[in-house]
């Protein structure tokens, strides 16, 4: 199977920047392979130094093209850049066509870039379960900037905030009604707005609308979300977009908001991991554990209600600790 057949990748290989080991390690994380747990435990202490920038927004607004342009900009400044681009898995077949790589046009000889496509594998919220740990592996491998593209969707995907320290919401001119429906989500998530395809008519009025929207928000924790016009055709606005991202990162340091945000993300990750484990154990148990099966029988026959059953399960778990 991917990542196991050829010997497990080691922490040493990852730290040395071995690209094949890195690629296999990401697969191991995606597949929930046991060697991934060991690897991430070993690498964790030296990760977390690198900022992760997220890009979200509706289908086809140009997230991949923008990331490609930013990669070129960053390579021009000699920064080592990694990209993780997430596309949806089909709920029917479980398969996926991962198409973000089409926009990636770095020369094959450029060793300072790493691009990985990733299927969401049923995770909600626009990123995959493995995206955060993939970013940690890339961090450990020495990449200095990590850019994450979420699944393009009708809605703004919130889960990127659990991974990225700066989230860029990418929109295009004439999203009028769509922006209306996105409003609440936009407030919650955008640290920077990019109005891409600004070569098309309507870009200036889109910018005005968003500036107004940002002002209405009153500035989250004192940050006024900037609006940057970009086009990947020139390209134009790319250095300005990066500067806005860096300005938000500087704000996080200046305002002291970074450690709090990081703690919030980590707390959420821990709770999420516990929830997933308990979920899997209980779901299994309700079928295979005789005591749990009896409890489920009694709920089904209306002798016990679901709330009481849940209470009993929680109490039983606590006692068994």
């Amino acid at each position: 199977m991917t990542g196991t057949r050829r010997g497990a990748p080691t922490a040493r290989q990852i730290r040395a920047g071995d690209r094949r080991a890195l690629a296999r390690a990401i697969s191991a994380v995606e597949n929930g392979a046991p060697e991934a747990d060991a690897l991430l435990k070993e690498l964790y202490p030296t990760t977390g130094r690198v900022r992760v920038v997220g890009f979200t927004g509706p289908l086809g607004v140009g997230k991949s093209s923008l990331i490609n342009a930013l990669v070129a900009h960053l390579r021009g400044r000699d920064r080592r850049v990694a990209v993780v681009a997430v596309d949806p898995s089909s709920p029917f077949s479980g398969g996926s066509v991962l198409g973000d790589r089409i926009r990636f046009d770095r020369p094959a000889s450029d060793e300072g870039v790493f691009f990985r496509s990733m299927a969401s594998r049923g995770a909600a919220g626009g990123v995959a379960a493995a995206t955060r740990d993939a970013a940690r592996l890339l961090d450990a491998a020495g990449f200095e900037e990590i850019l994450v593209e979420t699944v393009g969707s009708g809605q703004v995907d919130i889960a990127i905030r659990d991974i990225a320290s700066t989230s860029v919401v990418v929109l295009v001119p004439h999203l009028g009604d769509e922006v209306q429906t996105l409003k609440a989500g936009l407030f919650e998530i955008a640290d920077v707005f990019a109005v891409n395809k600004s070569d098309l008519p309507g870009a200036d009025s889109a910018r005005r609308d968003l500036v107004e929207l940002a002002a209405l928000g009153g500035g989250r924790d004192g940050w006024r979300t900037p609006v940057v016009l970009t086009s990947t055709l020139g390209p134009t606005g790319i250095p300005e977009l990066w500067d806005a991202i860096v300005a938000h990162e500087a704000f996080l340091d200046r305002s002291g908001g970074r450690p709090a945000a990081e703690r919030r993300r980590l707390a959420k990750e821990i709770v999420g991991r516990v929830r997933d484990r308990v979920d899997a154990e209980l779901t299994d148990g309700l079928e295979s554990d005789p005591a749990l099966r009896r409890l489920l029988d009694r709920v089904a026959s209306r002798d016990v209600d679901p709330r009481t059953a849940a209470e009993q399960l929680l109490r039983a778990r606590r006692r068994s600790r």
Partner: protein
Amino acid sequence: MTVRSKKAPVRVLIAKPGLDGHDRGAKVVARALRDAGMEVVYAGLRQTPEEIVRAAVEEDVDLIGLSILSGAHMALFPKVLALLKKEKAGRIPVFAGGIIPDEDARRLRKAGIRAIFGPGASLDEIVRTAQRLARPRA
């Protein structure tokens, strides 16, 4: 949400080497493999052999599919195979399709392209071949 018991999906890279702009076949094949439950990295048009090999390594694919309708297959396919070996990724199987005359197909198979399909090839057969090549022991 890691489901440990579930089998990991096959990952396939589909790419079009060279300047050939005919991408229907590549897209049709990509979709068929997706519908069979595979994760298909679609690298798109105008890929150099170097880019294809690099993508295969970074994406950690189990299989590479090349599509050419322009006639440049005799130059480009062996180049991809040679580069894979050079990058120590020679174990990744490569299959292909497009407009490839029988005589060329014979020679390419000898050179190491594992299977070749032409116009009208059955998608079911392509999927079965992909499964067999990607997971020989499954």
